């Protein structure tokens, strides 16, 4: 309780100092909007639906691309770990493409798909896929062989061994790969949205971009805050439960 109060106090003071610095003209409102104006923008944008619409568009791209990326990355990672041929070919490609920042796919995606949802999806999938694939591969390789031997003596075979032993045993790697994939996807999507106008939908990145074009600093900062909030929320909602489970079971945290 005391801790929550201290944290709350810290942020209240931070915002007050910010407001004061703008109000007394230390920071120019052209460059730094006051917290109040940011809140006013947020209220306005929520009321007229433009913010909600942008969040919806962005989240749809992100989630759809992410799900496809994970759904493809997991089995490909397993295939990679299982067959030498895939490891030598696909594994090499994955390693190479993972080092490519996924924003670098945008020019290609635009030429292939035009200024459409497909281009955005493609960029998000490229951000997710390779991280998940490599993490799954690594995870499977790190499964102690004795787990598999023990499972075999208990009557576990092929598919059962893969789904009930190898996959859960590599879960710590897989989850951190999924988390990295999420981070890559989120960053590349934002970059892509700021960078190009997509005709089929107006996302958060576009809102940010047009804030700059219109010199609306309150909009710029407000949208940045929304992007941060979504990132935090995703972390808490999507990954924290998994990580808590892993720490508890494996005994990896305090």
């Amino acid at each position, binding site marked *: 309780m005391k801790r929550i109060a201290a944290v709350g106090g810290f942020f209240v003071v931070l915002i007050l100092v910010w407001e004061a610095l703008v109000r007394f003209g230390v920071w120019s409102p052209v460059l730094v909007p006051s917290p109040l104006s940011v809140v006013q923008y947020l209220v306005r944008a929520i009321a007229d639906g433009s913010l909600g619409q942008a969040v919806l568009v962005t989240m749809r791209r992100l989630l759809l691309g992410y799900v496809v990326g994970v759904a493809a990355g997991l089995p490909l990672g397993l295939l990679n770990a299982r067959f030498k041929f895939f490891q030598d070919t696909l594994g090499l490609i994955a390693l190479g493409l993972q080092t490519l920042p996924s924003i670098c796919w945008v020019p290609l995606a635009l030429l292939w798909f035009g200024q459409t949802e497909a281009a955005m999806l493609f960029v998000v999938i490229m951000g997710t896929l390779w991280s998940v694939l490599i993490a799954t591969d690594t995870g499977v390789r790190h499964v*102690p062989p*004795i*787990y598999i*031997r*023990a*499972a*075999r*003596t*208990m*009557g*576990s075979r092929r598919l*059962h061994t893969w789904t*009930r*032993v190898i996959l*859960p*045993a590599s*879960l710590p790697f897989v989850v951190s790969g999924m988390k990295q994939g999420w981070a890559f996807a989120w960053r590349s999507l934002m970059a892509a949205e700021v960078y190009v106008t997509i005709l089929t939908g107006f996302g958060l990145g576009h809102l940010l971009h047009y804030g700059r074009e219109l010199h609306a600093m309150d909009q710029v900062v407000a949208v940045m805050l929304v992007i941060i909030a979504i990132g935090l929320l995703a972390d808490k909602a999507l990954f924290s439960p998994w990580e808590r489970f892993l720490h*508890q*079971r*494996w*005994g990896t945290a305090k």
Partner: protein
Amino acid sequence: MNELHRELVNVPPVKLTVENVSKTFHVRRQTVRALENVSLTVQEGEFVCLVGPSGCGKTTLLNIIAGLEQPDSGRVLADGVPVTGPGRDRMVMFQESALFPWLDVLGNVMFGLKLKPNLRHAERREVAKFYLQLVGLEKFVDANIHELSGGMKQRVALARSLAPNPSVLLMDEPFGALDALTREQLYGDIQRIWEKRRKTIVFVTHNVREAACLGDRVMLFSPRPGRIREEFRVELPRPRDINSVELAKHTAEITRALKQHLSSAAEVAE
């Protein structure tokens, strides 16, 4: 002696037969004769210990009996049927507990049971709890594996191996990594459980005293090539105490033989 023994005692049926098993490993251009023409029969309900220095092939033999490895020549029969792979009738307990960290204690014991057909979920739970009680861990059903001590982990591993009710238990230095006190407790436990559940046990160890304490028979292995050199019958009443004087006599006898075989093996190598 053996003939007389057979005449006087009603010998139970043969459970495991190892026939002329040989196995060679190739490690970095070197060939290691892990096993050479090893034969062995184990009767139902018998407790047989395989003793020898590390690298004498005793673990390899255990893995071959388990079906985890294939022999180069020779064969293993379980209940008269050739072993071609792992089977639920022959459970293995490893030196490391090999428990699954993503499952809790009950989940680990249930793992093998879930693969056994014709059981309802509630029945499986009951069976798992029965064996956890047998090893004295009924209070740790929901515990995570990392929360257990080394001895407790091996107890869970024992319960997990016992749960699918195998007729043969193959134990590969299961107490090797434990401290002396915990080990002594487990000697008591394993003897009690063996008598209660009437399993056939093949137990691998490099600890002669441990082998004499647990086994009806102790098979002495010598390395390079791995062979059974001598067989000792330990006829002491159970439960046996690892610290008893009679046991020490047997231990001394087996140790003496072991040293002799090792030195003669060394001479051959030279």
